[in-house]
């Protein structure tokens, strides 16, 4: 337990040598006050210095005025998960000032603008009030921009205190403003002057410092929604139909931004895609189903409330065997819940989405690279299997800033599935039937509107149909078709991404996790290892399961299934899929809107192990 405590809380007297490259900075501001640029600048500057960094925004569901906290974690070992500890707190928001002050770790550093005149009652931390208004005025910022640019002042002060390289800061600004000289200069001036002011104050050394490293070489900074959108662009997405909803909006918006850059026919200037903002999610998925049926790579992106509204069409897509891709960037439910907080709470719902018997395919990206990869692969799967494919991301993965290896170009040709065009039909010797299982894998052949062969047309429907897509109510027809769908689902097992398994010799414990909790699990496992509890790890990447999952469970004594929801949804699904091994599975859940921490995982597992 000692390991954990010291890593989580670094009790420092300010006299000792500073801690280098291993701490968290929290900036407390008001939503809509323009601090996002400042925070991104800090992250990018750190990144530019070669120091592993991650940023998480804990923001409210409003546009302006409510408290927002932005956490930047600096860690030379590359850990990027959320931590509870707050070594440096910058308090810009009068409304949360008291709470922000109280939360600084002992031995930490507290920075605030001196126009916030609150009583400071702590003597176990370094305190620094800076003259924000003066600095902005002195930098000759036009009065309309002052409030906004004031956020740059804390960047400067922080830079001086922890040793942030001002050139790196400049590069960050340059990137942010797309090289536009005026805003770069204006903001940089405030930062520089603030740093100078701090340097002039004869302060005791700060307890935390950064030093350049070379650990970000070969990485980029991005977010999961951008990665997903780019993946879809390279997956050849043709129809994007979406309705705004936090935290999925930026996925649709990124598509709207990138497609015109990357997918216009260079010769004619015409579009190979369309992005439609629908009137709601019922329509968004309806359009996607129409597009998928008409042979397009069609997708929609949404979050929980939208998924709920999509239920009926999801069932139609499943039963009519129409390929579509649905991104669910999960937020906290039930109901409207906490629109700006993260969760993994839609697993069961999406797995069973649709009335009557449905079983769906879920992809579970665990990193930005996987967001990109599943962005294109989802189409290959949907078209191969002629099914809806759901990709379950979440707010943390989708909207926060993560280091990642560059996105990798698809290493396979597109798989468009079993499609018959005019010449294919011409060559057929047998009569084609839309729902015939010719190959025994449950996957039929389809034709696509626009096919001019006189035998190509068929009439799609969500009602009972026979192998030739004709309406039928005959019990045997129904049964036969449903059994084929079950067969197709078995085929899917061999095609969806396999779990990533790290099997550790001698580990009795296996951890199962997925999605955005990966970084916390990685960090937790290192700590558990250090404290003498080695663990194996299976990071799930899709549902349904195939054979590897069973083997993993079999080869460990106890399996901890870690997830961010209340009811242990993945644990439930594993129980259903492996009823004979259910007794081995232990559910560990935590779900309060904040990303998981390594600490919670370590303590939960040690707690259970100690039972």
């Amino acid at each position, binding site marked *: 337990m000692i390991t954990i405590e010291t890593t989580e809380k670094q009790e420092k007297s300010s006299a000792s040598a500073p801690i280098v490259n291993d701490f968290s900075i929290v900036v407390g501001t008001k939503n809509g006050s323009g601090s996002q640029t400042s925070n991104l600048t800090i992250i990018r500057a750190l990144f530019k210095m070669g120091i592993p960094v991650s940023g998480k925004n804990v923001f409210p569901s409003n546009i302006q005025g409510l408290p927002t906290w932005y956490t930047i974690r600096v860690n030379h070992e590359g850990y990027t998960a959320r931590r509870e500890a707050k070594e440096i707190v910058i308090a810009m928001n009068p409304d949360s000032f008291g709470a922000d002050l109280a939360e600084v770790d002992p031995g930490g550093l507290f920075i605030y603008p001196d126009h916030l005149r609150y009583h400071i009652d702590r003597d176990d931390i370094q305190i620094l009030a800076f003259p924000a208004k003066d600095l902005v005025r002195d930098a000759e910022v036009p009065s309309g921009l002052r409030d906004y640019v004031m956020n740059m002042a804390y960047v400067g002060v922080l830079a001086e205190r922890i040793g942030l390289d001002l050139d790196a800061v400049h590069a960050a600004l340059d990137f942010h403003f797309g090289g536009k000289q005026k805003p770069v200069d204006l903001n940089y001036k405030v930062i520089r002057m603030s740093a100078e002011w701090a340097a002039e104050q004869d302060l005791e050394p700060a307890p935390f410092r950064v030093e350049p490293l070379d650990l970000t070489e070969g990485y980029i900074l991005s977010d999961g929604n951008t990665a997903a959108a780019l993946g879809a662009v390279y997956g050849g997405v043709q129809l994007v139909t979406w309705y705004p909803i936090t935290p999925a909006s930026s996925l649709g918006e990124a598509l709207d931004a990138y497609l015109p850059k990357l997918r216009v026919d260079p010769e004619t200037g015409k579009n190979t895609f369309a992005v439609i903002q629908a009137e709601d999610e019922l*329509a968004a998925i309806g359009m996607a189903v*129409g597009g998928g049926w008409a042979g397009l790579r069609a997708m929609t992106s949404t979050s929980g409330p939208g998924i709920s509204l999509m239920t009926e069409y999801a069932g139609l897509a499943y039963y009519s065997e129409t390929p579509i891709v649905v991104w669910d960037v999960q937020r906290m439910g039930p109901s409207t819940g906490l629109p700006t907080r993260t969760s993994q709470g839609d697993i069961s719902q999406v797995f069973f989405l649709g009335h009557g018997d449905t079983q769906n395919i879920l992809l579970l990206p665990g990193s930005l690279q996987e967001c990109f990869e599943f962005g294109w692969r989802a189409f290959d799967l949907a078209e191969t299997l002629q099914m809806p494919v759901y990709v379950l991301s979440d707010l943390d993965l989708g909207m926060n800033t993560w280091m990642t290896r560059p996105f990798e170009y698809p290493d396979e040709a597109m798989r468009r599935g079993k499609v018959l065009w005019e010449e294919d039909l011409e060559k057929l010797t047998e009569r084609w039937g839309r729902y015939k299982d010719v190959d025994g894998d449950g996957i039929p052949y389809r034709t696509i509107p626009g096919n001019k062969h006189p035998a190509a047309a*068929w009439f799609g429907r969500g009602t009972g149909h026979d192998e030739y897509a004709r309406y039928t109510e005959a019990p045997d027809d129904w049964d036969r078709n449903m059994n084929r769908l079950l067969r197709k689902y078995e085929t899917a097992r061999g095609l969806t991404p396999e779990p990533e398994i790290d099997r550790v010799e001698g580990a009795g414990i296996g951890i199962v996790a997925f999605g955005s909790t990966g970084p916390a699990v990685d960090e937790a496992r290192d700590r558990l290892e250090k404290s003498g509890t080695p663990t194996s790890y299976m990071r799930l990447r899709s549902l349904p399961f195939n054979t590897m999952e069973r083997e993993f469970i079999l080869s460990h004594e106890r399996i901890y299934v870690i997830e961010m929801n209340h009811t242990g949804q993945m644990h439930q699904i594993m129980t259903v899929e492996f009823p004979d091994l259910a007794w081995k599975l232990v559910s560990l859940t935590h779900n309060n809107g904040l990303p998981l921490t390594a600490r919670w995982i370590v303590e939960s597992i040690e707690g259970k192990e100690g039972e």
Partner: protein
Amino acid sequence: MTAENGTERKPGANAAGLTKNDYRGAPSTLCAGCGHNSISNQIIQAAYELDIVPEDVLKFSGIGCSSKSPAYFLNRSFGFNSLHGRMPSLATGAAFGDKHLKPVAVSGDGDTASIGMGQFKHVIRRNLDMLYIIENNGVYGLTKGQFSATAEEGLQLKYHGENPYEAIDICVEALAANATFVARSFAGDAKQVRELIKAGMTHKGLAVLDIISPCVTFNNADDAHHSYGYGKENETPIHDLTFIPFREEIRIDDHEEGEYREVELHDGSVILLKKLERDYDPTDRMAALQVLEQAAVDKVMITGLIYFETGRKSLTEIYNLTDTPLNRLTEKELRPSRESLAEVNTMMF
């Protein structure tokens, strides 16, 4: 007679070389006498007369007796019998597959005006290039005779007492949403139905065609506003209407000055409107609203081309798509180059 490509035409074949048979569908499973069946027949007839190749048409519907009917015409057209009230979205997405195809949709009054009001409005707003037929019987046929939102106030139905609500007028709704083509007809008026179908299929943009189509099983009492009896008694065409495809010459035999009005479609086709009681200008929105408002007050069933507008971009036009149908594009066109991704990556911080 020779077909366009110069080969000998089959007997009874049209300019596309197809006979009536090529436009038929499966046998109808609707009730004998249902208004919907006569509309299906007019769709077949109109497509045949327009020399349309069935493979160039897409069929869409929601759920209901009316929505079953696309199975009963144009067997050689692709189609989709979608969900109750949510057909417009599916049709919208599908239209992007191949912009050269012409979507024809059939819906019911329940499907459009009750559950489907939202999608109906929004597909109009987007001006999807589609003929949207509402087979309007004031009742839910398929679920056995409940009131729909177009049922008139005071209507009595066998198991559901009296309708306490005012009726929704589908043409008024279409106009409010800025539809570029709004027409009403009566299933008992086969010729008008057919001509309006032709016009609607030719119109570039969303054409709303509200056809009073009696449900003989559940809502056909003579005093019910959607019955055959009522229609025969009260139908009041605002003009006599003939559609003339753009290749044909307009020949008005006994042409009198001012007796006809011509409306030209985007492709040069013409709708010829013979004046009846008065001169009605279907390109005047205010006049359209007025004639509907007045008809509601007077309780007459006005029919004809109520409003028409040309020049607004249809949905797929707005989107500036490649000439090759999107659904014929291949990996080559759809996956940007490896280099471009490298560039994107370097553009990230």
